[in-house]
């Protein structure tokens, strides 16, 4: 092993079993590459074998009676401008895609890479979490399906096994009155700045009552997390400004941010309720049932 990123092998498998076989053979020395916008920045020196997903036919967005299916190698710019993701609560995903990194990075980076890099601040992951998306993961054995949030284990660490790769994202169809929103707080020194705090929310209403809600917080824990107490606080209740405020404060209590180069833990903690409140208000507006 050298101290530099010097993989000696590059493979371009044509099917999933070939890819899983390569990942299994090389174990920790293998790394999947899609857009390369994370891998070629971190350049891990232990990597000896690159497995490129380009020929696995995982670049698609399809909608059917079952929901929306997105191939893991679909690039972020395609998600940003997708007709399928341009209306209803699904816009939360295209909006998150639109504010991620820079245009050139979006042309390269993939949704699967954004998820599997397992950054606590990953924009797309939060949007997918509030849409109750699931991930299809393939390996040498049977493929399995798991909720998106179950992929994340720790900072830049997933629960995927060595021979497994993310294949497809499934977003269930939403038929009831629902609004969703994504809000990202960041410095604007450069537009690749990742979030100081980012928040996604999705609210399903009947008349002015909250039937179902999802709130996901980014950059305030070791992985993207649901604000479960804040969600529970809203369910079944009549939505008004006070309720939303209290729910947002509950979400802040659930966050466990750290100090880093972008912001202090204290600042992050203060920003959580503000962003959650704005996201929920956005959801309510988009549901069209806002009651003053």
């Amino acid at each position, binding site marked *: 092993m050298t101290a530099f*990123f*010097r*993989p*000696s*092998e*590059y493979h*371009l498998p044509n099917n999933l079993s070939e890819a899983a076989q390569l990942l299994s053979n090389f174990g920790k020395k293998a790394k999947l*590459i899609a*857009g*390369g*916008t994370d891998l*070629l*920045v971190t350049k891990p020196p232990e990597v000896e074998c*690159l497995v*490129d997903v*380009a020929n696995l036919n995982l670049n698609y967005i399809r909608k059917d009676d079952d929901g929306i299916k997105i191939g893991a190698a679909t690039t972020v*710019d395609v998600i940003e401008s997708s007709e399928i993701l341009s209306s209803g609560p699904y816009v939360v995903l295209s909006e998150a895609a639109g504010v991620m*990194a*820079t*245009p*050139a*990075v979006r*042309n*390269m980076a993939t949704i699967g890479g954004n998820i599997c890099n397992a950054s606590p601040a990953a924009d797309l992951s939060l949007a997918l979490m509030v849409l109750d998306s699931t991930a299809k993961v393939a390996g040498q054995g049977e493929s399995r399906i798991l909720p998106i949030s179950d992929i994340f284990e720790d900072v830049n660490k997933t629960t995927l096994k060595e021979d497994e790769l993310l294949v497809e994202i499934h977003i269930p169809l939403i038929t009831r009155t629902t609004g969703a929103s994504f809000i990202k707080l960041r410095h604007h020194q*450069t*537009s*690749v700045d990742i979030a100081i705090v980012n928040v996604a929310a999705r609210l399903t209403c009947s008349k002015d009552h909250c039937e179902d809600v999802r709130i996901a917080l980014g950059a305030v824990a070791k992985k993207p997390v649901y604000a479960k107490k804040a969600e529970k606080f809203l369910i079944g209740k009549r939505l008004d400004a006070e309720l939303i405020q209290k729910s947002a404060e509950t979400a802040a209590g659930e966050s466990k941010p750290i100090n880093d180069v972008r912001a202090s833990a204290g600042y992050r903690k203060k920003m959580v309720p503000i962003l959650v409140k704005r996201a929920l208000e956005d959801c309510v507006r988009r549901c069209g049932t806002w009651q003053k």
Partner: protein
Amino acid sequence: MAKININISVNGRWYQLAVEPYETLLDVLRNRLGLTGTKMGCGSGECGACTVNINGRAILSCLTLAVQADGKEIQTIEGLQKRPDELHPLQEAFVKHAAVQCGYCTPGMIMASKAILDHDPNPSEDAVRKGLSGNLCRCTGYDRQVKAVLEAARIIRKAQHE
């Protein structure tokens, strides 16, 4: 594993090369093909100095492996001019508006601008600013580039109507 053979088209000319798995497209363009117009900036996707266009879309050549560019058509700043004595309208407009000062960001900035105009020949000022948001310039303050791109867009549209 030995080197990997790739075929890439750069500015309309096909090259066959044997590359290491870790060589970036930027390395290949600059060190093997001698196309030093494309610049190495931050090496981490922040600055946009290494922007080139692949199949009409702006990408960062410092974060693209050469092997990943196999079979693709790449355009760099050297490939913009149709004739040696005639600048591309974007280049003309950058000169006219003094959108070039130290010049280091310029090739990436112009290739990002080219991708904007290829996608939308009549972009709004906002679209230009968003399109260039991944290209850092420490000299000009960006206003000149935006004006240059908008003027180049007008000139290109006019030329196409004639």
